């Protein structure tokens, strides 16, 4: 075979095989293959290999490992300011509305409010294309530095962008003096500080103008210079002093402690660069990228308190200790945040809340505090209170995208779906090119039972950001609910390959759950075997290890292998973890009862009761176990009472741990002949495609069979037939002899005959 004489096409071959050509190049290459036997034969001959390269998971994993092993650690080679991130993202968390002490320092309050200042981003005239974003860095550091004064309130440039956007004007760095009065009114600010960097390396000069926004007149100008860009922190310090002296501030303002901006951030320009990068990613909910950036930041400055603060939430709670150690390296405002997080992590929620409330006394318009308070109430299940705090943030900042996100979830939890969709659509409106708004919308649709809309939204998120692992994970779960385990497997493996580090075991088990749901027990077994082999159980967190054991136990029980299932749970109990003992205890009882081993179940109930008493706690496990026993004994009303209690004790119905109680309660209603309640409860399970519940896919799918029974007994035969059909659709073929499958098929045939 002669070789192709056109180097361009020879070079394009592999790109074509990997699907890496632009549509134009792809067309050109395919046309070329019609005329070039060499290229055609080459591609044809390599077709099997290229299929493996593109399709094989195992090869993907192998490549990822190989690439990671050979990849060099990235070193920041660019000048540090070149990597500064967009101002809109950077300053979102840096909006600083100056503290003033309302109760004690009334004079300060008046002065501070009179001296409310907007800092616009600084134009870097030394660099034509402004790729370095030095100007934004300077304005951000100025905000941090000036915000340390008790006699000033500082408004970020983000707020100005928001106002411009609200006025239907383009978000521009420089503010037109013509509209400054209107902006001043909206920002409730008197002063505008704007400026430029007119020359950089080797010397850097920063000039600024202080504009009275009531009149539009420049009342003072400032100029500072330094010999190197490395001294950016000291230049900002100098400029802050000049600005403060040009404002009519009391003598005390000039005497107050004025720490260097480096003292309350970092001394390392590189660390600051990575920190801002982290903040930018955090604001887009690109959490792995944000964590990477903060980790880089602490490589350059191991005392960077705020980088640790964020890492504690993003990566590992252990970082909160370092944030505490270096708390004096943070601004006053940030110190409140750090103390609040420490308290929250150490299980002192009231203290965590108090810190934020104290912060609001000093910084009354501080939206971060409102947002975090909202989050704390949200996490405690106090959704109405959370909503009030989120609405306060929106009041201060109508374009706060992350708050719309939280609001959407909150309204979703309270069942206010219209409001939920309004909030999420606002989020999309503000950040249409980010992945997270679509990811959140996917979850909201899923919780509303709109599975196709949910899938579509996750796909949009992935299109925007292919490595957005959260969306892959949730998309996989949706396919699981749609009884498409292969599709689910693909998506979940994508999530794993990108690095859903926190949920690795969980995701592996969801792959198994997808196959279990369609009663492909062999494949589900294989997946669980793989999970057992993949992890070192001795070093794995107890909760994760227990998920593996319970997944196997449930699968075995479904296939009637009760002894093995109970044996597995015995092994799991050796993990010696309180929560695990409780959850497994109720599951153990349930399986023992299904197996007809009533003495064993009773012993377990007694053991659970003793355990709970010894712990001095209340827990739903014992109520659940007693409910199962009552069901076995035919005491259905008693069973309902126990299971209602179990569900009531379960703090959050959305979480996976409550699923078995919901399922058993619905079943108890059915057995008690309370058919309407059974139907409501079962249907509730089927209209909320919650990602957390997917783990219990066997219960979830069997609930369709029971719902069919409930409809049938209610003489709602068409609905019964439809439900049986759904249940049988993917399962009859895989497990034709399973008791429920046989029964559902017979009942369906009978109904169809009579309809």
């Amino acid at each position, binding site marked *: 075979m002669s070789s192709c004489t056109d180097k361009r096409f020879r070079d394009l071959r592999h790109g074509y095989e990997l699907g890496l050509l632009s549509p134009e190049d792809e067309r050109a290459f395919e046309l070329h293959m019609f005329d070039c036997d060499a290229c055609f034969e080459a591609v044809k001959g390599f077709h099997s290999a290229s299929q493996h390269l593109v399709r094989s998971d195992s090869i993907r994993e192998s490549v990822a490992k190989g690439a990671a092993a050979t990849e060099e650690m990235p070193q920041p080679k660019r000048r540090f300011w070149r990597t500064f991130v967009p101002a809109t993202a950077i300053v979102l968390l840096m909006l600083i509305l100056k503290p003033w002490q309302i109760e004690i320092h009334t004079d300060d309050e008046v002065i501070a409010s009179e001296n409310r200042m907007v800092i616009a981003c600084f134009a870097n005239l030394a660099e034509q294309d402004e790729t370095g974003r030095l100007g934004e860095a300077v304005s951000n550091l100025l905000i941090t530095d000036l915000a340390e004064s008790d006699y000033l309130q500082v408004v970020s440039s983000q707020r100005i962008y928001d106002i411009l956007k609200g006025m239907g004007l383009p978000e521009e760095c420089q503010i037109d003096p013509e509209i400054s009065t209107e902006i001043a009114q909206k920002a409730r600010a008197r002063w505008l500080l704007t400026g430029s960097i007119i020359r950089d390396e080797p010397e850097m000069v920063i000039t600024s103008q202080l504009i009275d926004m009531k009149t539009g007149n420049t009342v003072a100008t400032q100029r500072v210079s330094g010999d190197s860009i490395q001294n950016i922190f000291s230049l900002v310090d100098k400029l802050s002093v000049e600005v403060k002296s040009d404002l009519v501030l009391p003598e005390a303002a000039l005497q107050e402690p004025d720490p260097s901006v480096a003292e309350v951030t970092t001394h390392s320009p590189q660390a600051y660069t990575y920190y801002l990068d982290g903040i930018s990613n955090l604001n887009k909910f690109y959490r792995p990228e944000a964590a990477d950036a903060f980790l880089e930041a602490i490589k350059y400055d191991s005392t960077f308190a705020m980088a640790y603060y964020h890492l504690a939430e993003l990566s590992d709670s252990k970082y909160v200790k370092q944030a505490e150690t270096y708390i004096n390296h943070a601004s006053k405002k940030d110190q409140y945040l750090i103390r609040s997080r420490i308290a929250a992590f150490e299980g002192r929620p009231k203290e965590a809340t108090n810190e934020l409330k104290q912060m609001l006394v000093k910084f009354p318009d501080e939206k971060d505090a409102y947002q975090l308070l909202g989050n704390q109430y949200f996490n405690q299940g106090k959704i109405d209170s959370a909503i009030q705090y989120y609405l306060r943030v929106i009041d201060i900042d109508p374009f706060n995208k992350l708050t719309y996100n939280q609001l959407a979830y909150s309204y979703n939890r309270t069942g206010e779906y219209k409001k939920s969709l309004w909030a999420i659509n606002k989020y999309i409106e503000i950040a249409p090119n980010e992945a997270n708004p679509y990811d959140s919308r996917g979850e909201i649709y899923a919780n509303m039972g709109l599975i196709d809309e949910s899938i579509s939204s996750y796909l949009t998120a992935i299109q925007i950001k292919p490595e957005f692992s959260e969306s892959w994970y949730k998309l996989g779960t949706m396919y699981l609910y749609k009884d498409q385990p*292969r599709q689910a497997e693909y998506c979940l493996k994508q999530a794993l390959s990108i690095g859903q580090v926190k949920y690795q075991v969980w995701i592996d088990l969801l792959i198994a759950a997808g196959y279990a749901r369609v009663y492909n027990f062999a494949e589900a077994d294989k997946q669980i075997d793989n999970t057992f082999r993949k992890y070192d159980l001795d070093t794995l967190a107890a909760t994760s290890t227990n998920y593996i054991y319970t997944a196997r136990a449930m699968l075995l029980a479904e296939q009637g292998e009760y002894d093995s299932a109970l044996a597995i749970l015995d092994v799991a109990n050796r993990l010696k973890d309180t929560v695990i003992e409780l959850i497994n205890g109720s599951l153990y009882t349930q399986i023992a009862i299904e197996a007809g081993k009533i003495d064993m179940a009773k012993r377990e109930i007694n053991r659970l009761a003793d355990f709970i008493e010894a712990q001095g706690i209340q827990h739903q496990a014992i109520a659940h176990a007693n409910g199962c026993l009552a069901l076995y004994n035919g005491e259905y009303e008693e069973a309902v009472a126990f299971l209602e209690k179990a569900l009531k004790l379960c703090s959050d119905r959305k979480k996976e741990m409550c699923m078995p109680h919901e399922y058993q309660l619905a079943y108890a209603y059915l057995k008690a002949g309370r058919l309407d309640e059974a139907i409501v409860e079962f249907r509730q399970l089927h209209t909320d495609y919650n990602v957390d519940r997917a783990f219990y896919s066997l219960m979830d799918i069997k609930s369709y069979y029971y719902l069919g029974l409930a409809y049938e007994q209610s003489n709602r035969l068409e609905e019964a037939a439809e439900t049986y059909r759904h249940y049988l659709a993917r399962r009859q073929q895989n497990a034709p002899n399973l008791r429920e499958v046989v029964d559902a098929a017979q009942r369906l045939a009978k109904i169809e005959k009579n309809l």
Partner: protein
Amino acid sequence: MANQIIETLFLRARGGEKSAQNELFGALSARFQLIAQKRVWDNQDAEEIAQDALMTVFDKYMEAQTHSGYTAWAYKVLSNKILHYYRTNSRHSEKMTITDKIEMFAESWTPDPTFESKIKNCLQKVIKTNSRYGRILVNCYHGYSPDEICDRVGLTKTNFYSILSRARSLLKQCLDKENGR
């Protein structure tokens, strides 16, 4: 320079040469199959599309009027068939790439374990000598476009394709060796 195989065959077939018609049918069939498989991923669908396109070409090539040549015309016929397939098979054509990948995985295609193992061995060798190839593949798996990959790996487009080409040669050599060729 391209040898214009198909174009020549078209002209000869239009002139009534029977052997050219048969040869043209074989050459087009093989190319249509390859391209359709590459674009559609479902082998059965790909085969149907290729056959359908082939039928159209052979129904109409005698009367076809074209300024850009018969090859381009035949290719256009195939492209239209593929386009039609996508339009009628998805409500979300803009999300085709991701959904296709998901559906593709869900199909029954399974790797050949022996061949897979050989590819893995060879890939590790190639990536060791050319780490950027590994990074390109990883980014490709994550769904990045060539422009984005160039940006992420720090390559010009020309370098990008050269790296791919060199890596492919190494991979092929290694696989040939593993297969005892």
